[in-house]
């Protein structure tokens, strides 16, 4: 975590307390409390329908809250004086389909007092050769990058990115990450939502996991994944883990997920490693890709939000 950044207190970029948002009978956000530090990257994770976009759109001033308080840079989100200070990248759309990419970005830049150079921004995001292409003819990834460009062109203090890398190919994802890192290094606060755990792990200082409209966990990626280690290896699918478990110290856990990938949790040390490899020898299997790692954010996420599809 960067010095000076704090996820709470009066200096926070975004402070949300007891936020409730209902649509008819559905409660999308149900008493959510969280804060995003200044100069930090905050990632909001959550399954589809967890309330991420509702929360972000309330912060952006698009939606009204039903209860609770939201402060953005210390102000009410509806405050018009916030508009030049915020950068917004919606989940999709927002650009006239017939508008040419370069022209549209230039128009948006004219709304700000000290905008970045639209040409340089197109260049940075690999859109220069598409500057004359109408928005509707851009690929999904190109549309996303143009939208990201528009979010940062006004040199904002705080940027909201709603699923900025959804549907991007690896090159475009890296270009987007470079922008987020560049923003952070320049002292811009970034709040983003994502479904990519590796993205949250790599980019963010602070992770907030929300589900059913509430915060279920938050902290730095390191604190969330914890100090606990796992032993992982690959072998043929369908090994009987009960025998292994009986040989392991009490409190250990073993699972196969997905097929052929084994994860052993517990007091991961020399003793456990020896027990596992000895068991593998009696089973006549060679443990491949054997490694001792920290849990990933994805493990934590699935543990918190369950495995059912929604």
């Amino acid at each position: 975590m960067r010095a000076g950044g704090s996820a709470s207190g009066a200096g926070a970029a975004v402070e949300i307390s007891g936020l409730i948002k209902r649509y008819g009978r559905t409660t999308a956000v149900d008493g959510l409390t969280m804060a995003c530090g200044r100069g930090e990257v905050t990632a909001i994770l959550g399954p589809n329908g967890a309330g991420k976009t509702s929360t972000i759109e309330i912060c952006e001033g698009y939606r009204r809250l039903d209860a609770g308080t939201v402060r953005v840079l210390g102000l009410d989100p509806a405050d018009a004086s916030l508009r030049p200070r915020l950068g917004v990248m919606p989940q999709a759309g927002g650009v006239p389909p017939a508008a040419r990419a370069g022209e549209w970005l230039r128009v948006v830049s004219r709304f700000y007092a000290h905008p970045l150079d639209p040409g340089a921004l197109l260049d940075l995001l690999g859109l220069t050769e598409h500057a004359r292409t109408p928005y509707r003819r851009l690929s999904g990834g190109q549309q996303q990058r143009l939208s990201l460009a528009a979010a940062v062109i006004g040199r904002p203090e705080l940027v909201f990115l709603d699923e900025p890398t959804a549907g991007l190919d690896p090159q475009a994802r890296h270009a987007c990450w470079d922008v987020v890192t560049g923003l952070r290094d320049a002292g811009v606060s970034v709040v983003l939502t994502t479904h990519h755990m590796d993205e949250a792990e790599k980019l963010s200082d602070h992770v907030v996991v929300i589900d059913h409209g509430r915060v279920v966990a938050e902290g730095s990626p390191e604190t969330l994944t914890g100090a606990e280690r796992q032993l992982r290896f690959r072998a043929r699918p369908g090994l009987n883990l009960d025998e292994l478990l009986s040989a392991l110290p009490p409190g250990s856990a073993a699972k196969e997920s997905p097929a052929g990938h084994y994860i052993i949790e517990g007091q991961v040390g020399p003793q456990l490693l020896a027990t596992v490899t000895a068991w593998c020898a009696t089973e006549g299997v060679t443990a491949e890709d054997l490694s001792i790692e920290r849990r990933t954010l994805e493990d934590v996420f699935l543990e918190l939000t369950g495995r059912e599809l929604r």
Partner: protein
Amino acid sequence: MTTLDFSPRPGAAPLPRMVLAQAGAEARAMLRNGEQLLLTMIIPILLLVGFSQAALIDVSGSRIGFVTPGILSLAVMSTAFTGQAIATGFERRYGVLKRLGATPLSRTGLLLAKTCAVIAVEIVQVVVIGAVALALGWSPQGDPLWVVLLVLLGTAAFSGLGLLMAGTLRAEATLAGANLVYLLLLGLGGVVFPLTKFPDGVRPVLELLPITALTDGMRSVLENGAGFPTGPVIVLACWTVAGLGLAARTFRWE
């Protein structure tokens, strides 16, 4: 890779710069859109040429002198009402209005920009239609000041109705509705068919339509050289107040 200075330096541009940028974008969009050009340029010019050259209607004076003011009124309606309603309806649908709401351009600024764009397109229309009419032997009468007043008031009245439609209906319904209204008002509002051809019973009703007020006023000035067009100005002013007032109350931005 280029490096850019992302360090925060927020600030809104001065309002005139924002409005001009957005107005330019909207005017370009209108002039590049094929369907829009059909309504704003091609149909009016075809009607102008057709009805002034062929004896399709029976008027007392010169045909071009009768038809041109009607076509200029149609041009105002096509841009301020039909074009604006359809464009704004789809801007709402595609989240463009919502996205603009996150920029320093205020709603007032956006409406100013739309108005400037409509007027810019109307200037192009008046120049093109006027040139074609002059080439066909048109000799306009009257004070240009009253023409400008009528065009501006007509623009305000039709903009109100267009935004009312775009801000409340789905984009597809606006598309269909705005085209239908265009056709109806083209037929009923004295654009090319003189109002005297309609039965006496319906004429007083037709005279209250905004398009009829506009064609009436334009004809009284441009064809007959009349002074301040009091009646049409009152009718158009009423439509402006009603249309813009209702639109302001009902417009949904997304």
